[in-house]
């Protein structure tokens, strides 16, 4: 069964550094999403992406965040200058239409 994959599984970075989190959505899906989950808290929507552009973003998704689909398969989330409070689990998800989303296993980001 096709699944969403994410790399790396765990990323440790120093405050102020740039990180890129990578995702490979399910191949025939058209909508892509990023969510984050700070430890012990609920999952929060960051951004949705369709037809090579952002379709919606939350207040969390400020200028230090960006997303890109650099080729036909990858979907990336870049954090330009990481802060301690960016430490969280980041989940990529994809969907065929505006309906059920399938999540990847997540990338644990630790900012020190």
């Amino acid at each position, binding site marked *: 069964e096709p699944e969403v994959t994410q790399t790396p599984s765990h990323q440790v970075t120093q405050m102020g550094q740039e990180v890129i989190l990578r995702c490979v959505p399910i191949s025939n899906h058209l909508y892509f999403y990023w969510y984050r989950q700070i430890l012990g808290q*609920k999952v929060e*929507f960051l951004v949705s992406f369709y037809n090579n552009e952002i379709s919606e973003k*939350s207040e969390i998704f400020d200028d230090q965040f960006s997303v890109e689909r650099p080729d036909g398969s990858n979907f990336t989330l870049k954090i330009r200058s990481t802060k301690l409070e960016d430490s969280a*689990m980041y989940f990529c998800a994809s969907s065929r239409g*505006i309906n059920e989303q399938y*999540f990847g*296993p997540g990338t644990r980001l630790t900012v020190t």
Partner: protein
Amino acid sequence: AQTVTQSQPEMSVQEAETVTLSCTYDTSENNYYLFWYKQPPSRQMILVIRQEAYKQQNATENRFSVNFQKAAKSFSLKISDSQLGDTAMYFCAFMNGGDGKLTFGQGTILTVHP
């Protein structure tokens, strides 16, 4: 803005028994979807079941079923014949029919005891 509330931070159940997890939501929309996701200790988010708001019939998926009460804005998950592998955090989630953005509840930790 939509909100999703799960009022049970923790629940426990004996293996083979039935348990119901509660969820309420608030929206002014008429076209929306509701979901239950399971998050085991591995932290992977796994889709358990979904319900379209326009459908009156409650969704079922093997041992998992929902009780969708649209007027009351309630969407509970019933797990029958609980198994040890059902131990996980369960999140209720809402999606407006038009935007694809999931809004999650705070989660309920379910522990299944042998």
